[in-house]
């Protein structure tokens, strides 16, 4: 391979972060190659393209890779006091292909957790540093919402109007009004009007089970078409085995398995790892060597540590009248940040959001509440189309004991180890979670629910896998610096959920993508020294 053939930047992973860093660098003028271990999603197989979408969603589309077992998946094991049920996808678009599109900016205080609240760590950047990239990302993605929420700083307008609240959202809105609390229409990565050649949402709901209409802004439909037009070379079915190093200690490229299982080598001037909160520490640990015996970029010992998942639950209110819970964007009703900021009157630090959803679908609900036998139909009919669901998400602070390790007892199809997770809810998280669930009951009761049930705090839902290669200014306490550059390897960058020093209390995809766009600009600025 001649020098002219060398890609300037090699990105590993095509998900939320990989797509964003690839597009931005290509549009700045870099030559970019992206390696993705999975393949493009066959959109004819999206569950919601079929009447039996609930069954397909539990099997072929299952969010846990151990259940789904696509060729690109690797085993994940869960342990610890509160095992994490891992949810992730290995495909073009990464885990966005199974997300519901809830799309939040962090708050300014999220970047100064240690300074303000004496917990966790501060970020090496501020909200103001990231705000322009949030705006850029919202335009590329196609985000629906409304500026002006008094629970956040002033911000640029969103490119698309919010989705309608529907009957479930209207009930919750009435509850918030009766309590005198803050509420706001939820921002979503959903095209609510024709946008950038994409069709507007047609209200099918159940967004996490695939959007055949293409209105849900999974990055395979938002970022990747534009990235490919910009010249990014995307190679699918490429499972990276390790990052290779040159004699001078710099990253020289990667070794990967192609679809046939043959080892291939790819060289680059810059390597960007964007494999997600589990995949990134896995790859760094797989890239251990005599110079990096504990894993690449791991002189701090923090690769794989500080796994954060968010404190999550659902609360469900039962209403006398039908709620029309079968239509509308799943997360697109109303949310509140009434309890987002630390309140010293409470027995925990940090906070949470509560987001209205719709109602459960028949199979899902039957498995939850309708025991088999003669009382089955009565139990289901009493709740179907009478329940309103609220999603609850709170901040999970970093704990070194919550971690990701290689699992050599469970191997992928190439003989590489899977990952094991060890996780326990901290006392702060338990107190926060208990308060969060209590307030959700309060809202639903104020909205008119005759009774409320909730999902408690266990099992831990592993949608948001964060913090396992965190950024920071001190090489002793972080893996990458404020530009996502590895402290130990000058031309290695890491950007995805693993980069987040703290979790905030909201769905993280918007932040991950904003970080990736900013990372691309940092790489471009630093390219002369790389």
């Amino acid at each position, binding site marked *: 391979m001649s020098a002219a053939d060398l890609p300037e930047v090699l990105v590993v992973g095509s998900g939320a972060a990989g797509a964003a860093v690839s597009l931005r660098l290509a549009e700045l003028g870099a030559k970019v190659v992206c390696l993705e271990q999975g393949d493009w999603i066959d959109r004819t197989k999206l569950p*919601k*393209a079929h*009447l*039996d*979408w609930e*069954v397909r969603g*539990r099997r072929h589309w299952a969010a846990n890779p151990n259940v789904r077992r696509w060729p690109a998946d690797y085993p994940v094991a869960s342990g610890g006091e509160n095992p994490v049920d891992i949810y992730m996808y290995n495909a073009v678009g990464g885990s966005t292909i199974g997300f519901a599109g809830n799309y939040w900016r962090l*708050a*300014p*205080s999220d*970047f*100064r957790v240690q*300074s*303000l609240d004496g917990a966790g760590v501060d970020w090496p950047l*501020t*909200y103001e540093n990231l705000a322009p990239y949030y705006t850029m990302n919202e335009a590329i993605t196609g985000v629906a919402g*409304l500026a*002006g929420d*008094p*629970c956040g*700083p002033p911000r640029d307008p969103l490119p698309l*109007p*919010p*989705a*309608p*609240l529907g009957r479930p959202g209207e009930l919750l*809105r009435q509850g918030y009004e009766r309590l005198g609390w*803050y*509420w706001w*229409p939820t921002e979503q990565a959903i095209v*609510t009007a024709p946008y950038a050649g994409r069709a*507007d949402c*047609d*209200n*099918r*709901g159940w967004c996490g*089970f695939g959007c055949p*209409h293409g209105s849900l802004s999974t990055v395979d439909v938002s970022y990747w078409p534009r990235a490919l037009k910009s010249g990014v070379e995307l190679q699918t079915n490429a499972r990276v085995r390790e990052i290779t190093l040159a004699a001078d200690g710099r990253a020289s490229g990667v070794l990967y398995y192609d679809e046939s299982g043959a080892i291939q080598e790819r060289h680059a001037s810059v390597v960007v790892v964007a494999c997600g909160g589990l995949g990134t520490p896995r790859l760094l640990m797989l890239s251990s060597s005599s110079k990096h015996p504990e894993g690449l970029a791991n002189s701090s010992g923090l690769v794989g540590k500080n796994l954060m998942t968010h404190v999550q639950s659902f609360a469900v209110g039962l209403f006398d009248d*039908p709620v*029309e*819970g*079968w*239509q*509308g964007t799943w997360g697109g009703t109303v949310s509140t*940040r*009434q309890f*987002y*900021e630390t309140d010293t009157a409470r027995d925990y630090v940090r906070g949470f959001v509560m987001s209205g959803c719709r*109602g459960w*679908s*028949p*199979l899902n609900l*039957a*498995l939850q509440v309708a025991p*088999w*036998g*003669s009382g089955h139909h009565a139990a289901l009919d009493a709740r*179907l*189309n*009478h329940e309103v669901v609220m999603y609850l998400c709170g901040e999970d602070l970093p704990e070194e004991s919550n971690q990701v390790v290689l699992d050599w007892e469970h191997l992928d199809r190439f003989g590489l180890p899977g990952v094991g997770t060890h996780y326990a809810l901290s006392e702060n998280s338990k107190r926060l979670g208990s308060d969060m669930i209590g307030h959700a009951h309060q809202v639903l009761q104020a909205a008119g629910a005759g009774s409320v049930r909730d999902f408690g705090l266990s099992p831990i839902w592993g949608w948001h896998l964060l913090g396992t290669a965190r950024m920071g200014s001190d090489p002793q306490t972080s893996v990458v610096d404020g530009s996502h550059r590895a402290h130990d390897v000058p031309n290695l960058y890491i950007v995805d959920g693993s980069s987040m020093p703290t979790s905030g209390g909201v769905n993280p995809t918007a932040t991950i993508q904003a970080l990736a766009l900013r990372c691309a600009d940092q790489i471009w600025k630093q390219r002369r020294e790389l």
Partner: protein
Amino acid sequence: VTRAQRTFIQCSADERERLLREFEANDATDAFNMVRDFTYEAYYSHPRVLAALEKDTGWSSSSPTRGSAMRPFDSSSLERVRSLPPRWRRA
């Protein structure tokens, strides 16, 4: 079923339930739960069952595959919240 000298389908509803409860009570392998889940999945994906549910409860199971027109968001409902003071911390 062997004791009853009939196939499961030939048993009465009460007999079937009793046999299944025995199966559930004596299952050490999680096989019953697997059978139950598969049964629920088959039942709640059948077009006739979904049509009956829609008739009885109003739940439209065809909506996720068919879609419907989206109405605009009514921002007038935000009047009170817009008047509230900022609720975020500078950092």
